[in-house]
């Protein structure tokens, strides 16, 4: 019999506190594992907290409506274990030698086999990022696992390490950036400690809950409520410490970890650079001799070995590559050939873009429709507003397009939709969540202006500005980058004459205004100069017919050419 203290987990990046909204249990209740305990609300969302263990509610801390600090105790549970397991690691002092174990040194010891707990439940307790309370007591050796960074995400791509082996990290210090299909998330350390192992390489897909960082936490990193006795700095004899630790599921899990991750993780080597210019090529005497015999200058042979060491294979490769041009000598000219090939790994955002573009093109039978729009009147109105309403900010044409879309879309619900083609269902949205494609230094990102239909010109402009800045800085939240129902893509001054935009799957339509140019057009039998713009668009032909699409674009055109109509219901 033991007490398990469930503490308010860190429910969102940078959230320090959350509002307790509702208790789902009462004192004395028996709760099962994964049973909801309470609802809390952060400034972002309401989160349902579930119990990591089964037990009887012994005490509830806080009343609904109260702000609770992250990591403060929320629920105390009496936990039953057949042999006393499940004792609260926080409250029951346990021999701490084990805590300092380097899991690599830990033999697959008896505690594992003797633990009646299923490894799963234990690991859940240990792993779940939603319950840092259960991991915190692991003061000696802390394994930070990849948290569930988004709803239903099973894996995430490791984009960047923010720490290296041996670094001392503070609590909340960024450890790594991972990327889901929605956004890049910065993972911060829940504890202070020294990084003892990094799992995974940049670009690798990691399963949620797989170990990411191992930390040797010192006393400083221990939560104040932890009653863990002082730990010797380094347990040299893991076996001695192992036995008494059986009582603690957490430590047992640490042992299990040793089995699973028993292989020492080699620290990721610093990337080997190829030879710097002017340094002598590194090669064995046999390779040097053969190169000399072949008349090959080794300085030009790329070496694949450590420190750019050149092997026989590298020399062969160089010869094979070099033989073709040798057979057919290059025509004499003053221009040198450029033969270098730079390999760039498609990772991170680039891979994300590549995958979604591939997906869109593979699944969606696109058709494009291009119409020209006389923007003279709208441009005049825009110029007027920018002068008369200077204080409200400068308007681009984008808010007008958004206005036109939200005005026309209710009549074309099949176009403002998300098509779940696996399920064969089109979700038609009343709201217009307008994706606005933005170029960032890393690549294309589509922030989403939620409920564009409820925004006036300036509100929309401000939201777009805010979102694109966030996207460019990589600070956009996951929900700000997902959920669009239709997308607007504009290349601005680079707009060109016409484009065939790729639909932002699973949407069904995308609108791409092109560049506004002054062109001679015939108006009433006269050739006059008008500000003309082409409006390109693509539609998913599975759910949007050409006729409807054309009609839809014509309605847009009508509104843009008669901008007063944008504001008339």
């Amino acid at each position: 019999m033991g007490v398990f203290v469930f503490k308010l987990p860190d429910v969102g990046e940078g959230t320090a506190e959350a509002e307790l909204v509702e208790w789902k249990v009462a004192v004395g209740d028996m709760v099962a594992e994964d049973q909801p305990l309470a609802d809390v609300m952060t400034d972002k969302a309401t989160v349902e907290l579930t119990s990591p263990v089964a037990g009887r509610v012994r005490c509830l801390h806080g009343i609904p409506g109260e702000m609770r600090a992250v990591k403060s105790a929320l629920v105390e549970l009496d936990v039953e274990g057949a042999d006393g397991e499940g004792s609260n690691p926080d409250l029951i002092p346990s021999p701490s030698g084990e805590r300092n174990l380097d899991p690599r040194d830990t033999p697959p010891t008896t505690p594992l086999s003797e633990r009646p707990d299923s490894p799963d439940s234990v690991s859940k307790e240990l792993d779940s990022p939603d319950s840092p309370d259960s991991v915190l007591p692991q003061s000696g050796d802390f394994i930070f696992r990849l948290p569930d960074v988004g709803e239903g995400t099973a894996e995430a791509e490791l984009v960047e390490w923010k720490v290296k082996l041996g670094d001392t990290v503070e609590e909340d210090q960024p450890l790594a950036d991972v990327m889901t299909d929605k956004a890049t998330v910065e993972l911060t350390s829940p504890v202070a400690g020294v990084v003892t192992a990094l799992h995974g390489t940049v670009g690798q897909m990691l399963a949620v809950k797989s170990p990411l960082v191992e930390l040797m936490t010192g006393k400083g990193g221990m939560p104040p409520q932890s009653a863990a006795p002082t730990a010797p700095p380094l347990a040299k004899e893991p076996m001695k410490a192992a036995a008494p630790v059986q009582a603690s599921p957490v430590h047992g899990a640490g042992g299990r970890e040793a089995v699973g991750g028993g292989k020492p993780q080699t620290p990721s080597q610093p990337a080997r650079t190829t030879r710097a210019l002017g340094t002598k090529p590194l090669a064995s005497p046999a390779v040097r001799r053969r190169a000399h015999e072949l008349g090959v200058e080794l300085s030009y042979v790329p070496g694949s070995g450590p420190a750019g060491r050149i092997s026989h294979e590298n020399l062969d490769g160089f010869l094979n590559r070099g033989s073709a041009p040798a057979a057919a000598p290059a025509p004499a000219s003053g221009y040198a050939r450029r033969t270098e090939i730079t390999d760039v790994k498609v990772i991170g955002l680039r891979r994300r873009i590549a995958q979604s573009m591939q997906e869109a093109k593979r699944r969606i039978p696109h058709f494009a429709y291009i119409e020209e729009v006389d923007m003279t009147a709208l441009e005049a109105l825009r110029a007027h507003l920018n002068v008369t309403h200077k204080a409200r900010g400068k308007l681009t044409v984008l808010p007008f397009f958004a206005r036109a879309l939200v005005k026309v879309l209710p009549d074309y619900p099949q176009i403002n939709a998300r098509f779940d083609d696996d399920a064969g269902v089109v979700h038609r949205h009343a709201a217009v969540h307008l994706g606005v494609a933005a170029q960032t230094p890393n690549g294309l990102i589509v922030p989403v202006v939620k409920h564009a239909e409820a925004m006036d010109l300036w509100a929309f402009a401000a939201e777009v500005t805010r979102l694109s800045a966030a996207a460019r800085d990589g600070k956009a939240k996951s929900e700000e980058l997902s959920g669009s129902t239709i997308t607007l893509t504009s290349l601005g001054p680079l707009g060109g004459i016409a484009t065939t935009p790729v639909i932002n799957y699973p949407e069904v339509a995308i609108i791409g205004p092109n560049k506004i140019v002054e062109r001679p057009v015939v108006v009433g039998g006269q050739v006059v100069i008008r500000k003309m713009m082409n409006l390109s668009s693509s539609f998913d032909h599975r759910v949007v017919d050409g006729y409807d699409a054309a009609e839809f674009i014509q309605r847009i055109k009508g509104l843009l050419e008669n901008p007063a109509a944008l504001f008339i219901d």
Partner: protein
Amino acid sequence: MTQTLTPKVLVVGGGPGGYVAAIRCGQLGLDTVLVEGVRLGGTCLIRGCIPSKAMIHVASEVDVMRRAAEGAGRHGVKLASPPTVDLNQTVAWKETVVDKLNGGVTALLKRAKVKVVEGWGVFEDAKTCRVQTAAGEVVIRPENVILASGSVPVELPHIKFGGPVISSTEALSLDALPERLVVVGAGYIGLELGIAMRKFGCQVTVVEAQDRILPLYDKDLTSPVRRWLEKNGVTLMLGAKAQGVEADGNAHVLIVETAEGEAVRLPADKVLVTVGRKPLTEGWGLEATGVVMNGRFVKVDDRCATSMRGVYAIGDLVGEPMLAHKASAQGEMVAEIIAGHKRNFDPVSISAVCFTEPEIVSAGLLPTDPGGSGDGVVTALFPFQANGRALSMEAGDDGGFVRVIARKDDHRLLGVQAVGAHVSELVAEFTLALEMGATLEDIAGTIHVHPTLSEGFHEATQRVLGHAIHI
């Protein structure tokens, strides 16, 4: 009557450069003649490396025995009386070693079908060599020539060899131990022999014009040797210049100007002058071959080709380092070039060893070399004090260590040095590591046998990487 030979290759000089070149030529099927004026084996076998190591070996045994006879003995081993040395017998034993190797070289040349002409050869032009032999004059007109005449000790103009003034050659064949020996020149030859003589029981004074011993090496490497000299009563006179030798009754006196400018008279039974070696460029018609010189050396390219077509030069004759193994490597290469192979001389390291007490080895860059220190370089040393094998041989407290120097960015080894008892055998691994382009991780990832001194290399690389075990 004059005999005329017209071989494919003429090798002049039977030292470690010449005889190796000749054997390789023979292996390659080239009709080869080797001319040697003294004895096959050259300086190295006859009056250098090998005989000096033999004498050093005996000296070290004498030293051990003497210490066993002193006081409480050594680790429970006690000799009743100090050892006595009959130097004639020691020299005779050394000669058996030399004879064995000399005979071996003769046999190897014979097996390689190399014709050996014994006599002093003099060139008349680059492709004509006239040799006076016991059987008469031989004129050799080869297609190709390999010059491997080697080097001789440098003589001081005011202290000529002769009488009490000896070179390393005579020092290895003394008929009696000098009571007082003055060594002029604290380079590796002078110190090797001076230390050996001290171990034999002579009073040894070393006079060096520079302010340090073994000026080729950095201070860290040489300080254990200096410690040994001081501990064992060898008088070191640094910054001192030997001025001349005078007779003083039956004995002799070396006049030395000290660093402070005082004239000191050092009584000496023998004065060993070891102020360096110079290429042997006189007395065999080098000037008649018309090859272009590079200072006092013969100028060669990276194929050891001289300015004269078909004339190659190797070894001490072509420049520093004047080391037997460099000469042999060049000799093999030139043989192959003459046989039509495409070769060039492109070693990463011509490593060197110094059989002082303790021994010093150096492969690759020293910290004092360009690029051997600074921001782009990482280095660490591992003291033999922390090496079990060294301790078990009483070699742990002489200040010895292994030192590695590597590039900071890609961890490639740049240089490895060691100082300590018995470290001479370690240099092969150091050199191999450098030639194979090893990185610190390669060495750290190689399991080094315990208990051996080579663990010091392993640990030194690990120490650079930040995870040495035993320090």
